Every structure is written in C-alpha cells, then in structure tokens.
C-alpha cells in the first residue's frame, strides 16, 4: 500500500502552548485511519495542520510523497484534500445545492465573464457539474432538501450536507472532524454507513477524528492516539486496545 499522507514530525505551538509535539505517522492509501484522544489533545489542530490552516513550526506534511507544507490551504484542496468541520462550517445562507456546487469550484473553469454571460461552455459546465452533485445528493439521500437553505436544516442534516460538500470536491483524502458528534445512535449508524460506502465505492482515504471508541474500533484499519499534543500510540484497533499508554490516558494512571 502506498503512503497517502505522511505527517512527518510536526510540532505546532501557540505562544507557550504546545498543541502538537513531534507527531509522526503515515496514512496508507485507501485506509480508514482514525485519530482519537481526549478533548484538547490536539486532534483538530492536527487536521488544521494537514490542510494548511495552521502552519506547524517544524516538520513536514507529505501528500502522495510531495511536500505540501508550504502550500496555501486552497492549493491543498485542489490536490484532493477535503474536510468537514467539528462545528459545522457550511455556507448557511445558500441552498444545499449551492453548498455542494460551491465545492466543485476547483473542478470548474469558467471565469467571471463566461459566468456572467451564462452562454455555451459555461452553461454546459454548470450542467455537467450539477449532474455530479445530483449523484451525491442521491447518495446522501438529500433529494427533498436540494433547494432548502442550509441555515434552516437540523443539526444532523447539516452534518450530512457538510459531508456531501466535502465529497463534492472529489477528494482522494477526506478529513472528517467528529462527523458524529452530538448525534443519536441512528444518525451515527447512518453516518458510519455513509463513511464506509464512500470508502468502499470510491476508495477514498479517510482520516477520521471521533470520540465514539466503539465505532472507531469497528470501522478503522489503523488508529492513532494523541494526548496533550503527543502521539502516544499508532496501530490496528487490536494493538491500540492493548496499548498501556492509551489505556492510562483514557482511564488514568494505574488502571487496568
């Protein structure tokens, strides 16, 4: 399995606070790779570093073997890195359809003038991409909500729309930041099913941050555990559940 993402020894600090210190792991292409850890451990900082919102002070991010540490976030997205957010970050005043279409930005070409005239090529492009987005709407069962304003949707639906938006970018690496936070069991199961389907049908590499340990153990091939900005264990679910450092981080010193 080729390496999709290599987080190479990155350290990130905000003033005196060390958010990440020398985190180093590799994600194989086509894997579901989960990152777990207590609140404030630095999981979201890790994702933010991968897609360029934060710039780690040291270390490199390698994507498909190429160093992307210096690229601005939008260029990293153009390489095929997409994500969802822990606190939903949708375009709230736009429709579901427009949210998904907006994520097709990197795949579309028409400029200002072509768009303003909405003639020939621009219109054909619009329709072609609409077709792709409609497939996603089908997949995520959002058909009745196509033209609803995102701000009016319920929390669970918004999470689903956000997943759709991340997928509309046609990523090869998908970063999911707590996609199931605040959901009930049924919604969680739905979301897990979508994630597995994406993984299976499109072979997308998925980096998942999640607190529900049971679910993480079920669906991931490999798991990384972070505590206080340090990587305290990487391995298969079985290895992680037997890892002493992980157990003490979660349950406290001297447990088990």
């Amino acid at each position, binding site marked *: 399995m080729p390496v999709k993402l290599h987080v190479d020894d990155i350290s990130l600090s905000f003033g005196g606070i060390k958010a990440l210190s020398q985190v180093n792991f590799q994600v194989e292409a086509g894997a579901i790779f989960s990152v777990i850890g207590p609140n404030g451990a630095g999981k979201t900082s890790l994702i933010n570093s991968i897609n360029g*919102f934060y710039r780690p002070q040291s270390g490199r991010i390698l994507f498909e073997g190429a160093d992307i540490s210096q690229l601005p976030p*939008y260029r990293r997205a153009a390489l095929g890195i997409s*994500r969802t957010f822990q606190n939903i970050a949708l375009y709230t005043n736009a429709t579901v359809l427009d949210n998904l279409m*907006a994520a097709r*930005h990197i795949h579309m070409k*028409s400029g200002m003038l072509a768009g303003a005239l909405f003639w020939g090529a621009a219109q054909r492009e*619009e*329709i072609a991409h*609409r077709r792709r987005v409609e497939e996603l709407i089908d997949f995520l069962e959002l058909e009745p909500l196509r033209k*609803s304003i995102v701000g009016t949707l319920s929390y669970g639906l918004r999470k689903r729309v956000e997943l759709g938006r991340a997928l509309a970018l046609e990523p090869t690496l998908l970063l999911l930041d707590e996609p199931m936070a605040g959901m009930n069991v049924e919604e969680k199961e739905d979301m897990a099913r979508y994630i597995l389907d994406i993984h299976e049908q499109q072979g997308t590499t998925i980096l998942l941050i999640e607190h529900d340990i049971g679910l993480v153990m079920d669906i991931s091939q490999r798991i990384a555990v972070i505590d206080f900005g340090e990587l305290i264990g990487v391995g298969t679910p079985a290895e992680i559940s037997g890892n002493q450092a992980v157990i003490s981080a979660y349950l406290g010193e001297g447990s088990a």
Partner: protein
Amino acid sequence: MANIKPAGVFDTTYEDDMAIDRTRRDKFWKNLAFCALLLVPLLSASGPLGLGLLGDQYIGLIARIAIYVIAVQGLNLLVGYTGQISLGHAAFMGVGAYGSAILARELGFSFWLALPTSALLTGMLGLLFGLPSLRVKGFYLAMATLAAQFIIPWALEYPLAGWTGGTRPLSLPAPMIGPFTPYARDSVSPETPLDFTAGAAFIVDVIAVELTAGAVDSARIDILQPGGAPLPYGDVNMTVTRDAAGNVIALRYIASKAGAYRVQLAGAAEARAEVRRGKALSFATDTAMYYLIVPLAVLLMFLARNLIRTRTGRAFISVRDNDLAAELLGVNVFATKLRAFFLSAVYAGIAGCLLAFERNSISLQMFQLDLSIEMLAMLIIGGAGYPLGALFGVTFIRLLQEAAIPALRPWLSDWLPQLFPFIDAVNITSAINPILFGGALIVFLILEPRGIAHRWELLKAAWKLRPYAY
C-alpha cells in the same frame, strides 16, 4: 427562499431547473416589464410622439434611478454577496465620472471608448483599495475603504486639479454615435455668413468648420446660437483644433439645441472657411440618454444575476458565509475578494461615467462620503444579497427623495414646527429630507432587515403556491 415553480409544474432537465424564469409566464411578464420600460419616454411631452402623459422630469428621474441601480448593484456584489464592506463606493463613482470626463476632454475619447476605459480604470483602483481585505475584515475593512473615500476626492481636487479643475464643475459633451454623415458643403467668408436651422432629438446637426485660405492668424470663427450669442470655444459640444501657434484653424460643433444658427468669420477680408454640415446620432436629450442608460442597466443587472449563480458567484457567497471553509475547500479567498472589489468598482465606474454624460457636468460634491453611505442604505433597504435588492432600494429611496418628499414638504413644514415649537422652523424645514431618509432606514432595519427584495421573494412564493400555504 428558493426559486420555486407553481404546484404541478415539474422540471425535466437541469437547464429548466437552473433557469431564472421558471415558467413561460415568468418570462412573459419579465419581457413585458422591459418593453414597458422602453415605452415610458414615448408618454412624455418631449418624446417622439409628444403625448405629454408623463412629466419630462420623470424621464430623467428613471434614468438617474437606473444609474444608481448600476452603482448599488456593484455594491451588492461586494457587500451583499461577498460580505466585504465598502465605504468608498461614491469615490469609485467619482473616478468613473472624472476618468471619462478627462478622457473625453483631454484625449478626445468618444463616449463609447471612454465608458469601458474609465470602467476598467476604476476597476483597477478598486483592486488597489481591496488589497487591505487580505488582512482585515468587517469594521476594520470599513475603515480601510473609508481611506479611498478621502484619498480619491482629495487626489481629484488637488494633485489632479490641472485636469479636473479642482472644485469647479467640469463639463462634458453629450455622447454621439459614430462619425457624422455630411450632407452640405458651403464656403463662408467675412462678408457671407452661413445660416441654417438645426433640429435636436436623436439626430443632431454637426457643423465642421475649417479655415482654408487667407490670413489664418487673424481669422476667427464664430457660431451664433439661437438667440444670437456667440458660443464660447470651451462649449462642451465644441471640439477645437489649433495650429502650433495656438490659433483656431478648425472646429466641430454639435448643435445640441433646436433653432437657427449662424456660422460667421471675422478678420481679414480674404479669409475663407469651409463648412460641412451633417447629421449624427446623438444622446444629447434626456429621452436619448434614457435609451442609453436603461438598457445598459438592465444588461448589467442580467450579467450580475448570471454571475452570482455560477462559479465566481458561488465563490463570493462562500467567502461571505464562511471564508475559512471556503479557503479549505479550494477557493482562493483573497483572489475572490479582489475579484469582488474589482467588479464592484467597475460597476461604480460605469455608473459614474453615465452620470457624468447624463448631467453634462460633474463636480466633486457629487461623490462625497454621504453618497457612499446613502448607497449602503439603499442596498440595505432594498435587500443586500438579493439579485433585485439594488433595484428596489434605489427606486424606493429615489422616489422618496424626488417624488414623495417634495409632495409632503409643504404639509410637513407646516406641521412639524408646531410639534417642536422650541426648534427654529427654518432648521426643521431643512432637516425634513435627512429625517425622512433616516426614518425609512430605521423602519426597515427594525421591521425588515433583509430588505424589500426579501418581501418580494416571499410574495412571489406565496403567489406561486396559492391556494396553499406551502
């Protein structure tokens, strides 16, 4: 509120689903409204039919509304769709106005060339003043764009005074289409002047006079306008050619008023000049300007409408709603903001240029901070981030200021001083305009902060869904 269809009408293709006019009836009404707009000048007294059903001042009023609709739509693209704030929009209009005036006066650009050139120039300047948006947002960006509102009028007033005339008004010729077609060729000498009658509607008479013989140095060409007074060489409709010594050797004049003209030559007896007279299509009248401005405004609204439902527009909206998510999902946020600043300034530049040519005369007073704020208020009242927000806002405020307030003024200036006897009546009368303007703004901010356009969308939806509620 999504763009919905009446119950029972279904789309079968994505083309249909994307269309702005969702049904044939929509399209019909829209075309009808456009035709009606084009027919309005025919109702006025000075129109081709001379019906006199509508006061002449309304033609100018609608044309000015159209000009401000263009400007405010530019602001809408920036403020309503991209979520950036600009307090320098009036200054950009000023750049368009002064830019086109200077191009026309100093470089002899025709209106048709001055319009795109000054619009692009304004766009570039908008780009420059959009640069702070890389680092600052919201309130701080408002302050940064406020700089434009002070720097630009200052630059026009002092460093560029040689071109702009400083605080004095600057005059411009009326736009004209193409070269004129000569139909008469005469020769004038000091003893034999040339008399002719000009008509002035769309087709105007153009006179080109060229000295051909005789003591050129001592000859002087005069055009006497109806009434007998000679036209000054600096008249807006006159283009003068001088030789190296600064003597006038040729001139061209567009007869902007109907009536009897005389071309005469003064100086040495042997001086001769050739006069060619012709017809040209001109926009010197209010009605003609109306036909220039209104279709252009409709076109620019149409272009903006298309823009915001395609790639660039969605990028604008992404940046407005969540710039962080936009950046992480592949939108170059800074470039997108700059595009919005550029476009917004281009719209302002076009509006400024049109205003300059419509008024024939511009001054710095027209492009001050109060106009920037007024345009923002128009946008808020009309509905920021709605395709028709600019149209509703400008129409509402302009009608309030130019039709409703003058009608209410006698009654208000009677009644208000009784209500506030402790304030000098003169102060109250002069404050009626800002009071009503401010009052309208406050009422909208409280009752409908999303603007008239939002109400309009609700109304449209309700109409299409009738008799059901949803």
